[in-house]
């Protein structure tokens, strides 16, 4: 959905937090070299963690975090009504990120485990991505978002361009970086099906891709299947990894209560 951006000298940004670790908003504050300029280009009218003043009029709503409560849904709808543009920040908001792991357990079970008989005080629902509730104009992927990608998305929107986010899989960047492939040491890597843009960070650090940037637009399914077969891995092994960041889609509605991880 293309929202009309109000023509203005300084677009007003509002940042809202749902169930998240605040790491994505921290990445905005981590733009140390750019922050002073950024604050001249845009105005943050709502950023609870950094600013006391609040404003109710904004041009771009940035949403961090997964939807886990009914109250979140109401809040999101109200934000959507006000904001010409809604952008999600990070994996929690899309495709659901680590909060989605909760979905692998019965939705009442975690609450009972955590708070015992007091669980009724703190109602919680399945973890869902923001676009399961309201239309979203752009997703900035990652766990956390990369500050350069954040700045390039904001800049693109300021000049009326669509944000440039790759659709090809992490493997493309990984091969360019000439990393040894995780599959060669028998590990399962989600690089072939995950959206690039991180520079294949985790494989470059001797680890493997966990899928934090969500599914690629053009995943390399056939090579993925070949790699799995060669390593004696099956769909269940993939699912167990996939639910780490993609626990909303991976499970589908009726499978949500099953214990995938066992």
């Amino acid at each position, binding site marked *: 959905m293309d929202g009309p951006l109000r023509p203005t000298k300084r677009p007003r940004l509002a940042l809202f*937090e*749902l*169930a*998240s*670790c*605040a*790491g*994505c*908003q*921290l*990445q905005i*504050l*981590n733009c*140390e*070299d750019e*922050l*002073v300029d950024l*604050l001249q280009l845009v105005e*943050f009218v709502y*950023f*609870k*963690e*950094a*600013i*006391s*003043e609040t404003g109710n009029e904004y041009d771009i709503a940035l949403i961090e975090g997964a939807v*886990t*409560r009914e109250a979140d849904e109401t809040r999101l709808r109200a934000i959507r009504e006000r904001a010409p543009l809604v952008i999600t920040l990070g994996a929690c908001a899309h495709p659901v*990120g*680590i*909060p989605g*792991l*909760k979905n*692998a*357990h019965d939705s009442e*079970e*975690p609450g*009972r*485990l*955590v*708070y*015992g*008989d*007091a669980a009724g*005080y*703190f109602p*919680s629902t399945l973890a869902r991505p923001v676009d399961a509730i309201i239309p979203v104009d752009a997703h900035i992927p990652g*766990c*956390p978002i990369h500050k350069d990608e954040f700045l390039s998305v904001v800049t693109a929107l300021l000049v009326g361009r669509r944000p440039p986010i790759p659709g090809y899989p992490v493997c493309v960047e990984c091969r360019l970086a000439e990393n040894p492939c995780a599959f060669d040491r028998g590990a399962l890597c989600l690089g072939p099906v995950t959206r690039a843009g991180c520079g294949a*960070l*985790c494989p*470059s*650090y*001797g*680890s493997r891709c*966990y899928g934090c940037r969500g599914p690629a637009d053009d995943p390399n399914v056939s090579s993925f299947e070949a790699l799995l077969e060669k390593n004696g891995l099956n769909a269940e092994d993939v699912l167990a990894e996939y639910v*780490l960041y993609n626990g909303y889609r991976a499970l589908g509605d009726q499978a949500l209560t099953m*214990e995938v*991880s*066992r």
Partner: protein
Amino acid sequence: MSATRTVDVRVDYVSRVEGHGNIVVTARNGEVDDVRFEVTEPPRFFEAMLRGRPFDQAPLITSRICGICSNGHVLAAITAVEDAMGIVPSDQTMLLRRLLLWGEIIQSHVLHAYFLVAPDFFGVGSVVPLVETHPEVVKRALRLKKLGNHICDVVGGRAVHQVSATIGGFTRLPTPEQLRELDRSLAEAQTDLAATIELFAGLELPAFERATEYLSLESSADYAFFGDTIFSSQGGTTPVRSYREKVREHVVPHSSAKHCASDAGAFMVGALARVNNGYSRLSEGARQAAVALDLCPPVSNPFKNTTAQVVETVHCVEEARAVIATLLETGLRSEPPDPAPRAGRGTGAVEVPRGTLYHEYAIDEEGRITDANLIIPTGQNLANLEADMWAFAPYLIPLGTEKAQHTLEMLVRAYDPCISCSTHVIDLTESGKEVQR
């Protein structure tokens, strides 16, 4: 006869703290009736989410509790899993882990002191107006914050949610060039640190004192960020493995974060607790900073938690330089971590920016997590924060609602609470049932 005068202080969603918390104080005829710090963040259920996951994902998953103390969770998870599986990290690994932790402590402390606390003293609502009025202060804050992130970047691969520290060691080591460059940045920070000490020494903090118990980790070797023993300012030590005997959790209805108490009741953890307990082991520059900041123990003014963070920032910069010198001198050896799963139960405690963080895991023969317990610093501090509010409110109420409100908000901020962190605190037993301890 005067009519009943009711004063309600209510701050919904205290700003410039991490997460969502409300202050509620009710007073009738000057008598404080009720004090609550309500935590209404969505519960997060991390312990339940960990069950069934492979042991090596404990750091990855728990670091997503909090982006600000991400490395702290990574290191507590690693320490606990290594304890469970009988893995002893190398000296090189421990040095790199210190750097990773100190980088985060520097960035978190600078963020808190400059971005979250300082605006109150400049009479503004955020750091944004200071960009116009005090650009040099903002730029200094950003440089120091960047320095902390730079350390995390070099050692962990990125500033938030590092990608190289794992069970048994590091999957990639920094190069000597990176370490030398980092050391230059640390050396250059001296001027900014001196200016920071001067700035915070000049702030007039509310004069409020309430003696309490301070808990922090203890180590015979240094100012402890890692350790096997919990030290109490009221005397006595507790082994980390017996942390449940010292730090006891309970549910309160107005908070989705559990509260904690020791035998003596509410206690405090964090920078102020550490400086109170470990003053003599601070680096030399940090001790000088403590003198300049009027922070020689015992200090019982919770507002001084922020000044203690400034002292620790100086300490971490100095100590990081010493660690880098050691690493460069001995040379970095490749030690690829290759942990083999082993069944067991283990505990790890690390001093993170806001205080002592405990992780405990049970792991089965296949390396799956069967049970987890995490105790977060902010959860430990909530009862103490409320006790401070009870003690302070009677003095604030006569000053009028607005002043009382503002000062109580400053008190909350001084604790540097990380509220989203604290809202998943859970007590799982082997059977998966909650027990009241």
